[in-house]
């Protein structure tokens, strides 16, 4: 088997490897715990290798990969699932691979004292398979299936610490929210299938033309509402602090990835599946007086409004929290708002240079947010591991005992607040500049909230790490090496992205933004055409 064969089958293998690994983990667990841990790390390492192979080919060589499960003949009326990997998919699986690998390395020591780790690792791998599936599939129903796989495994992992009642409650809330969101997504898929007799995203994108039918609009509303809830957009975000706050830190890290997979799906539906109705020459939805109400303008305004509310509510709530993880969770809500703001602005000003710049800023911020917020959650987990404490009111002076963890927190703090020279600065700079050109008020709100976000984490830093040495924490030691390595890995990627933003934007972000902005390549890859 040569590299070309591996590359050809990589879209399927990226799902198959963690899926197979998930079912083998309980068996290997019976032999030896260390062997199981090594096996899981190797499994996610192999998945990461496949992701890098595929992403390199898509992002650097500019190819679009398709992988067909079932009949190869597009015209035949048989059951068939199709994966299509363009720049945006490749971008997303890179995020997924980094998060899963780091989470598994972190888990080695972090979860060591827990029982039921065979189930834990099985669920982690299932969650990874589901997340990669959501990011790779080009089939609507298949997307729903992967969404459900991710939701069920996430729910079990959020409630993993069953001895803590609140974790079980958070798991319950998560599954209720996920199921209802997914049901509405399924309803939308059924509407589209009923109309066009197709489930493939490219075929649907080609079929949905301007002017849209009433059913097209209904399906779009259901998809946006369902996926926005899964992505944690205010006011549908309330499950997120509960779930992020109660899950083990390693699980929270992957949850960040699954939330972003939902955000990706939202962008894919709007820009690709409904892409033909967004183009500048598409017919307006309605004319009110002299003003044409276009779909891109209307959706852009709605998304920007939701984003601004998300940023403000997220950051204000974060400022009020006294629990370490809930503070980061609300900050994560605000960060999702930034991505949403940029993509909404890109939609609003579609076809212009600053519209494209906003889209790039939003996409760049997706990966930056995953790394920055992910690192902060791992630090919160490290503090909990060392002190068994989550309340900021009871912490203090930990920098004296946990030097490396403190440095990692500082890196995460600067990055998430958009301070130079960290990665968050470059993406937020793009967002501020492009939104300013669309409407200065948007940029002003975004900058002010970013300053508040810095204030939030300065508070956390002061409360947990600074101040006199508290006698209760005299015996607290630095966390084990595997946790430090995991946090160090994320910190290194953050610094690398921060130091070379041009390299990252040109090679990873640009292809993703171009893939979103231009759906004709995605469509022509499946059904032919120019």
């Amino acid at each position, binding site marked *: 088997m040569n590299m070309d064969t591996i590359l050809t089958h990589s879209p399927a293998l990226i799902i198959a490897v963690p899926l197979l690994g998930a079912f083998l983990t309980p068996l290997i667990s019976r032999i030896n715990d260390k062997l199981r841990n090594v096996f899981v790390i190797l499994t996610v390492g192999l998945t990461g290798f496949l992701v890098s192979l595929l992403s390199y080919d898509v992002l650097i060589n500019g190819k679009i990969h398709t992988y067909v499960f079932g009949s190869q003949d597009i015209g035949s009326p048989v059951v068939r699932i199709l994966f299509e990997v363009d720049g945006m998919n490749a971008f997303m699986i890179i995020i997924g691979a980094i998060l899963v690998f780091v989470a598994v390395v972190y888990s080695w020591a972090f979860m060591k004292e827990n029982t039921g780790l065979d189930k834990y690792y099985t669920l982690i791998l299932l969650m990874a398979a589901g997340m990669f599936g959501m990011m790779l599939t080009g089939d609507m129903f298949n997307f729903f299936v992967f969404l459900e796989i991710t939701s069920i495994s996430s729910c079990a992992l959020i409630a993993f610490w069953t001895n803590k009642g609140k974790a079980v409650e958070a798991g319950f809330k998560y599954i209720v929210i996920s199921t209802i969101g997914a049901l509405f997504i399924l309803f939308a898929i059924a509407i589209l299938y009923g109309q066009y007799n197709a489930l493939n995203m490219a075929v649907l994108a080609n079929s949905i033309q301007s002017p849209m039918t009433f059913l097209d609009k209904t399906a779009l509303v259901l998809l946006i509402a369902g996926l926005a809830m899964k992505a944690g957009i205010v006011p549908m975000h309330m499950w997120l602090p509960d779930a992020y706050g109660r899950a083990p830190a390693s699980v929270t890290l992957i949850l960040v990835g699954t939330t972003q997979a939902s955000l990706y799906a939202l962008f894919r539906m709007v820009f690709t599946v409904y892409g033909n109705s967004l183009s500048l020459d598409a017919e307006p939805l309605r004319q009110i007086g002299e003003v044409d109400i276009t779909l891109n303008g209307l959706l852009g305004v709605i998304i920007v409004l939701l984003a601004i509310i998300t940023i403000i509510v997220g950051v204000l709530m974060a400022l009020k929290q006294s629990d370490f993880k809930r503070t980061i969770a609300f900050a994560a809500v605000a960060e999702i708002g930034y991505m949403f703001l940029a993509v909404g602005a890109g939609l609003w000003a579609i076809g212009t240079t600053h519209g494209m710049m906003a889209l790039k800023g939003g996409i760049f911020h997706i990966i930056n947010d995953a790394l920055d917020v992910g690192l902060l959650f791992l630090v919160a987990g490290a503090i909990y591991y060392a002190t068994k404490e989550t309340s900021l009111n009871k912490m203090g002076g930990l920098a004296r005992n946990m030097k490396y963890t403190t440095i990692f927190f500082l890196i995460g703090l600067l990055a998430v607040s958009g301070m130079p020279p960290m990665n968050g600065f470059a993406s937020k700079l793009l967002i501020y500049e492009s939104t300013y050109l669309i409407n200065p008020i948007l940029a002003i709100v975004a900058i002010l909230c970013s300053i508040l976000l810095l204030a939030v984490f300065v*508070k956390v830093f002061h409360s947990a790490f600074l101040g006199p040495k508290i006698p209760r924490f005299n015996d607290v030691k630095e966390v084990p090496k595997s946790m430090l390595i995991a946090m160090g890995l994320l910190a290194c990627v953050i610094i690398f992205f921060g130091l070379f933003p041009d390299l990252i934007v040109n090679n990873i972000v640009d292809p993703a933004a171009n893939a979103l902005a231009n759906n004709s390549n995605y469509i022509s890859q499946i059904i032919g055409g120019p």
Partner: protein
Amino acid sequence: MITWESFLETFETGSGFWNPLIWITAIVIAFLVVYILRGYGKKEYKEKTEQIKAFLSGNPEYEKEKMHIKGSNVYWGFTESLKWIYKALEKMHTGNVSDYILWFVVIMGILFILVGVI
């Protein structure tokens, strides 16, 4: 193909630019200047003397745990002045899953009116 030169390129944002390497060089130079200036300061600090004790206007020093400002007390003035917003936000965050669904239905309804009906 990624070249070595591409690592050093300046990031163009459309109207502006950003080069972290230049920024870091400037910061390092600034730190060096500060460090040199610091060297001219008085060297009167003596370890293991009364100098290391916290001076609280002549009042006795509290226990270590009481000295530290707790997380909830930081930005007290800010949260107090925005009490009206926080009251509304806390009312919204009930922790009840039925309310979470209610918000979902409300947003879906608004979207339906805006996109579906228009």
